[in-house]
């Protein structure tokens, strides 16, 4: 087990239950609430783990910044053994929230089905080790269980990412699993019933609506919570700040964490382009075709930090930021380039002296 842990330390990205092990342990130790069957801690502690707070002397960092009522609704849903569906624009922390919920409730966020157009029913139910199947016929040993089936056996939480990307017949396979809470294996003549604590957290993208529209029958089996884009500048700023610092430390980027001023600028630009108007609501702004989510702002900033660290002085310059902005906003060359140019000239140029440097750099970049 210890070698496994060491291996994990080398991973690019640690699962939430490893990353926040101390916090989870502290919460479990200090937990005084009622713990539902199959859960690792009380619903209140799960809430604290996500929303932040204190457990004894341990500070619990907030994992989801924004409307904490949504977290409550998510936790309450899972208490009622209903499946949870998180939907939202790309980059609204759906997967992040689902991972942390699974880590807190079940202690393992790794039972994941990653939905794609190629996901088949076997990924949802079970498949076979064909060598063994051919050699011995259907035996329990030859059965390859899906993450969902394993979660059922263990009474844990399975995650289903990007459910709306799967073909509808794959989605349909979930319907009976969610209502009957069993998976039958007719070849073995047995059924796997879910133990208490089993649930599914699925995520779906609002931008994918209409690709594989979820059926009403499936929707009915989920409690649906819509995760909004951060409601105000301060919220978004604190999200970006926190995540950038976290990522910078885990990737050991050799650049200084960007100054608050640079963060403010990036978040302002993103918010204005996303909402289609300036922050003071006085001017209309064209929105680019691409997604301009908080997640993009975070990756833009870490990107710029990497640029600064590898090819620059280690301090984020306007040029680095401009390169990042160009890449994040201008995706569909022609139109986005015009949108960006218009924004630069109509809005950013008028923002005053502090923006001068960034404006010049962006302008050059966009030529």
């Amino acid at each position, binding site marked *: 087990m210890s070698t496994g842990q060491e291996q994990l330390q080398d991973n690019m990205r640690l699962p939430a239950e490893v990353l926040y092990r101390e916090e989870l342990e502290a919460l479990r130790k200090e937990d005084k609430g009622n713990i539902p069957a199959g859960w690792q801690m009380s*619903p*209140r502690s799960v*809430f604290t783990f996500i929303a932040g707070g204190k457990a004894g002397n341990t500070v619990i960092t907030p994992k989801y910044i924004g409307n904490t*009522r949504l977290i*409550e*609704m998510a*936790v*309450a*849903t899972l*208490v*009622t053994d*209903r499946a949870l*569906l998180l*939907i939202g624009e790309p980059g609204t922390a759906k997967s992040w929230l689902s991972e942390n919920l699974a880590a807190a409730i079940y202690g393992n966020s790794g039972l994941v089905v990653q939905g794609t157009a190629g996901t088949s029913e076997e990924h949802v139910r079970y498949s076979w080790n064909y060598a063994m199947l051919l050699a011995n016929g259907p035996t329990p040993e030859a059965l390859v269980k899906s993450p969902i089936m394993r979660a059922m056996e263990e009474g844990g939480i399975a995650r289903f990412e990007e459910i709306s990307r799967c073909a509808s017949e794959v989605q349909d396979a979930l319907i009976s699993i969610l209502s009957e809470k069993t998976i039958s294996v007719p070849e073995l003549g047995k059924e796997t019933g879910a133990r208490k604590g089993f649930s599914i957290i699925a995520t779906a993208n609002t931008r994918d609506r209409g690709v594989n529209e979820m059926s*009403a029958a499936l*929707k*009915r089996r989920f*409690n*649906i*919570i*819509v995760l909004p884009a951060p409601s105000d500048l301060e919220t978004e700023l604190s999200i970006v700040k926190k995540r950038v610092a976290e990522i910078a430390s885990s990737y050991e980027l050799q650049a200084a964490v960007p100054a608050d001023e640079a963060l403010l600028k990036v978040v302002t630009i993103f918010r204005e382009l996303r909402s289609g108007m300036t922050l003071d609501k006085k001017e209309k702004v064209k929105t680019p075709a691409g997604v301009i989510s908080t997640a993009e702002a975070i990756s833009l900033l870490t990107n710029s930090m990497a640029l600064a660290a590898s090819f620059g002085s280690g301090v984020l310059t306007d040029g680095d930021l401009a390169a990042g902005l160009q890449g994040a906003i201008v995706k569909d060359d022609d139109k986005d380039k015009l949108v960006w140019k218009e924004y630069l000239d109509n809005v950013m140029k008028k923002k005053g002296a502090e923006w001068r440097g960034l404006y010049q750099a962006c302008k050059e970049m966009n030529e």
Partner: protein
Amino acid sequence: MNPAAQAGVHIFGVRHLSPGGAKHLLEYLEELQPTAVLIEGPSDATDEIRHLTHQATKPPVAILAFTGELPVRTALWPFAVYSPEYQGMKWAKANGAEVAFIDLPAAVTLGLQDALRREENPGRSRKPSSEDRTESSGTEAPAYESIYSRIARLAGEYDYDMYWERNYEHNSSAGAYRSALLSFSAQMRALSEGMEQREEPREHAYNALREAYMRRQIKLRIEAGHRPDKIVVICGAYHAAALADLSETISDEEIAKLPSRSSKLTLMPYSYYKLTTMSGYGAGNSAPHYFEMMWEGMEKGRPDELPHRYLSSVARLVRSGGAHRSTAEVIEAVRLAESLAALHEGSAPTLRDLRDAAQTLLGHGDLSAVAEALARVDVGTAIGSLAEGVSQTPIQEDLNRLLKRYKLEKYKSTVANDLSLDLRENRRVTSEEAAYLDLYRSVLFHRLNLLGISFAINRPSGQEGATWAEHWTIQWSPEVEIQVVESTLLGETIEVAAAYVLREKLQNCHDVADASGLIRLACQCAMTSQIEEGSRALQGLAVDSRDVVGIAAAARELSMIISFGDIRKVDTAPLVPLLEQLFRRGCLFLLDASGCNDEAADRMITAMNELNGIALEHSETVDDHLWLQELLNLSSRDDRNPRLSGFACAILMERGMISAEEVSAEVSRRLSPGIPADLGAGWFEGLSMRGRYGLLSRMSLWEQLDGYINALEDEEFKRALVFLRRAFSTFSPREKTMISELLGELWGVNAEQAAEILTGELKEEEAKMLEELNDFDFGNF
């Protein structure tokens, strides 16, 4: 019971709109069997209690106090069925206990309001609404909001309402509500009183005054022979702690010194919707219907059914909106709401929990899918009602008098009635009143409309331009009653109030067309002095306006008023100079405004029609000569919109101002080869919009048109065709037949054959060609 409480009267602090409070209060009253129930409310309204508790009274109702003279000040005390005060009154009546209001009389409340407002530092922004004054008693005075949201946060709730509902409304253990609220209020006062004294000295003084007055009233009841421990005082939680010790009271002399305004009191029906829009008033106001459901559940002894009832109601409304929602989803929503409540260690879901559950399960995560249903279940549409004759404000009396005088009483029913009015003098009757009965009725209806009282609704008359006939649909409803009572604030009588509203509107009017509309309104409402004011306003606006379309519309409006004013017995003479002025302005700016694109030309054509109509109708007053001059000018110009030039020519032709030769010269000039098709054909389109018979009778004109079309190149012809097709599309079949006859004669074809070809169905081939024309590229125009 502790000895201290035994000695004094029993104070029951409540939140003003609180079903939990009402339930606990009733239990408390039952247990104590008091001989007097004293309620926080204007003491001069005690007489109204018998009306409030009357069988026929259906809450929500309100006590309205208002001053007779300007500036009008008002104060309002609303009651819902779940108001503890209301239930307390009902209990007292049923059990034969004395019941009275003990707060400052409304006259003093209004007087103080006045004094406070005068003293107020204008630079300092304060909650302005009158209702706040009546509700400083609440536990939610806005100035201390931060304390309340801090309490909510400490309790782990999202807002104070949620905290309140969870900890007070849902608290069913006997006596808990009262004792919890008493200690809450005492501690809250200890915490905030000092600060209030410093930062809101007036507020503090006002509260101290009210409390001293209430203490005195309580003392009076004790002196009158009620045993102190048989008296229950129902008041806002904030005052509960201050009323226990009766030592400090206000004296007669001090009361006499208080500012006071002569004022009147009335009961009025109220609506749940209004309850939600009231600013500053206490809890429960955001969702009256929800709290009514809660109260009903408590009365039935089944408060735990509320989530089921609430969510089923929402689901039913969502279903009636066309979306399918299963019972299973309602069940899951109830479970989610209960699980949310359990997260907060609550015994039952709060409104917020229920709303969130509804959004997640019934709205599939989308608030907009359930927003309407939620609003309807939360707020409800209930409107209160009072026994006949209970609600009496001067304006109601005035209206009733007018209805009687104009023999309209029978229409005061909740069934919609139609009434047709003939505004002309009825010559078969002798008295003037009877002769103009319908006119007076019309004036009354128009005034009511102006006041926003939806008693009579004007339906468009079937007969175009019959200014002497009006059709009204008349229906009385509780909402109308509310609207009438509210109009009291605008004036004592319908006429005074209507005049006030009209003056306000005139002062806020910035548009020539609006101003003329208001003048018409003033005529319809028979308000002579407002007509004059209106014409002054219009004149002021017209001086700066260069918008011919707006001026023409306003002038048309005036011309209508002048022409038909005598039917309404209105003296329109002062409007005549104004009409002249507007008309002149319209003429002078005609040429300027005619340099416009085709889209604007449509509106200009309407304006020119209107101006020409005025010129004909009022030829003795307006400057017709100038009009014709300007038209001549326009028709001869080549640099204006060709359609407008053509239209000007048509008017001149119709008015006989240009001779046949001149017309034909103009036609040949306009339609000569080499003139771009859009100009030539556009001009012809304008020309053909008026006086068609004049056109049809002139053979030479058609010859010229024929020649012009023949002379066009293929490409040019296609362009011209687009315009000509549009020009002829408005011709009636009969006119088209006449044209075809003319052309037949011209080409030497049999007239009937020509007609057949021109008016018959299109052949497939021709239809295809026309299709192609529809794709015609206008880009190079």
